């Protein structure tokens, strides 16, 4: 459980740092009075969407940290045998990087107010994310053809499990792209669209990092 404990310790660090800026040592019973007298302790200035995404990312990070904790604990039992590493996974990783880059580009375009570039970025991002999921399915087929099905051993079981959970989160992201697209369709203000696209881009980058960690674990074990 070491991995998840580390993650939670990190999150606790962030929480305690933030709490330390909130005057938790003050004596509220002595402090009556108007706003403005106690600087910096009001509601946070971060937009709700970003804050919500941050919390969601922390939850998903905990989820994958727990999967990896289970992975490491299960590995220590005698029957572990490594999986063949399909070359295709390198291609998939490239496609996911492309997807993340496209959304980053879309975010930049939204910031500059370039509608066409934004639409293009979103389209490429969504298409390459879907492409990534399809390629993952091909990697599954390749492994199954080699005789490494889901019940072939613990390494196989974890491979299908982790790639599936990751792909489901990515598909959730693709579904969430409907939001900025809907906003573009009804000509919402540029700032609103930009905020929406930014959230998607951040989520994509996060899922890219998760995939890179999962891929590295797979390659190393």
């Amino acid at each position, binding site marked *: *459980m070491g991995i*998840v*404990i580390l993650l*939670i310790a990190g*999150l*606790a660090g962030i*929480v305690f740092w933030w*709490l330390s800026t*909130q*005057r*938790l*040592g*003050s*004596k*509220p*019973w002595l*402090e*009556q*009075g*108007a*706003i*403005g007298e*106690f*600087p*910096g*302790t*009001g*509601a*946070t*200035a*971060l*937009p*709700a969407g970003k*804050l*919500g995404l941050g*919390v*969601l990312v*922390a*939850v998903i990070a*905990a*989820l994958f940290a*727990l*999967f990896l904790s*289970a992975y490491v*604990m*299960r590995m220590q*039992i*005698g*029957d572990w045998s490594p999986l063949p590493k399909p070359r295709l996974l390198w291609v998939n990783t490239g496609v996911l990087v492309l997807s993340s880059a496209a959304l980053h580009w879309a975010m930049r375009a939204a910031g500059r107010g370039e509608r066409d570039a934004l639409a293009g970025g979103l389209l490429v991002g969504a298409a390459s994310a879907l492409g990534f999921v399809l390629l993952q399915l091909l990697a599954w087929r390749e492994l199954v053809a080699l005789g490494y099905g*889901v*019940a072939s*051993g*613990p390494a*196989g*079981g*974890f491979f299908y*499990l982790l790639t599936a*959970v990751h792909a489901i989160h990515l598909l959730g992201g693709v579904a969430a792209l409907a939001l900025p697209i809907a906003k573009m369709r009804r000509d919402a203000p540029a700032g609103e669209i930009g905020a929406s696209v930014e959230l998607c881009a951040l989520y994509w980058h996060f899922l890219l990092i998760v995939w890179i960690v999962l891929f590295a674990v797979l390659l190393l074990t």
Partner: protein
Amino acid sequence: MVDTAFGAPGTIPPAEVADVELYHPHSFVTKYVFSQDAKVIAIQYSLTAVAIGLIALVLSWLMRLQLGFPGTFSFIDPNQYLQLITMHGMIMVIYLLTALFLGGFGNYLIPLMVGARDMVFPYVNMLSYWIYLLAVLVLVASFFVPGGPTGAGWTLYPPQAILPNTPGHEYGIILMLVSLIIFIIGFTMGGLNYVVTVLQGRARGMTLMRLPLTVWGIFTATVLALLAFPALFVGCVMMLFDRLLGTSFFMPAISQLGEQLKYGGGSPILFQHLFWFFGHPEVYIVALPAFGIVSDLISTHARKNIFGYRMMVWAIVGIGALSFIVWAHHMYVSGMNPYFGFFFATTTLIIAVPTAIKVYNWILTLWRGDIHLTIPMLFALAFIVTFLNGGLTGLFLGNVVVDVPLSDTLFVVAHFHMVMGVAPILVVFGAIYHWYPKITGRMLNEAMGQIHFWVTFIGAYAIFFPMHYLGLLGMPRRYHDMGQTSFVPDSAHTLNAFISVAALTVGAAQVVFLFNLFWSVRHGKEAGGNPWRATTLEWQTPQTPPGHGNWGDELPVVHRWAYDYSVPGAERDFIPQNEPPAARPA
């Protein structure tokens, strides 16, 4: 509704909020069914949780009938008994207590207490409830599938949870795991809302140190839940793989009835680690909101500021952090490395320190207070005693050498029912009596409340106090029938019958409570806006029950902390949080 300029130094956000920013329901369906108003969602959550909780209550009656009068009720066979304990435990812990404290009280109280118009993401909040309802329906469906619900015990330990011969291994266990997965997804949606609303939706002047402890408790519990539920999620998904796809994450090589099963190499202890990594924070997910609520009840009904507010806040945060490093004290007998036991026993005893601080502070709040023995106060006082009782037996069980012989006896059952069954439920009742006037505009009937309180409180002790004694005798838990056992004397069987009678009596008292809930909606005494003369913001709404958007045209502005009771020199014995300070001498 959400002002991004909140809190930026030197800026004061506008008090008036443009009307268009609020979501407005237009029909009966969007107002009461698919509502995005946190108050309606709170009531939906609460009613669903209470409904499924009543099912769990009936299950406990059946168990008590079997335990108290073995052999009399032939329709309860050993397999059904296992199904009863499993479903009773799982429903009470997750589908009732977690959903009620966070989905019910969290939704109702957070926006009102922090001075917001609604949750930050109302649509996601609505989804959260409907997904929770789906989880409940999937769970209920398991009563009707062939083989019935799972009988694996509420901890669902593999390998027996998915082996043939465990009741419900065909469909029951699958539906249970799926239902938990759905519940966690729904909870995460709600939890996002509670956290972000507390961080981001607070009214002007509502600093963290002016938050009522109820909000602190629910907020911290939500953070714990968001990080702990994924562990249960991982355990459920992996067990579902073992059950459906034939992987061996948790399943060791095993043969049954002389036949070698397809599994091999998996680790049941791995599941236990995942389960209890969720399971222990879960205790505090239920306890922290109860701590918070009880602090507010005691302060309000003793007309005195809470003693040691800062310490109370620090204790809540400290307990929350510590609760992540005590989980393996549930696993002393699992065969894990004995050195772990030493570590986890130490952390378990450390967590008693902030918890004890809270108990002392409640008692010191009462000291020389102007105590009004209202129904909410009676429940709050009963909570302190009960939580202390359950907490003390927790110190016994936290030590490895004491736990090993007591493990799997009724002593453990008595301990956890006291500390996380009876104690939080007493707070739930107290909170309902306290906030019901705000939710409906009418008081709950006092006489029925007195009957409900005394029967429930004394009855709970009649049930669980003797159970400690049965546990010390060595009477095991989860047994359908003790049979002829030399170490269990006849008097123990008599005691068991007594416990069963007490349990049925307490159950009957809940019918009085339910009747009161529905009767008082129409026939209760008119409550007015602030019947308890309380300081917190939810009592200062322009309408009772609060209208859509909570606050009329202007959001409240907070000028003081939540506990200005009996301030010397003040006109009244309470000063609402939104009352400006009297003009100061220049």
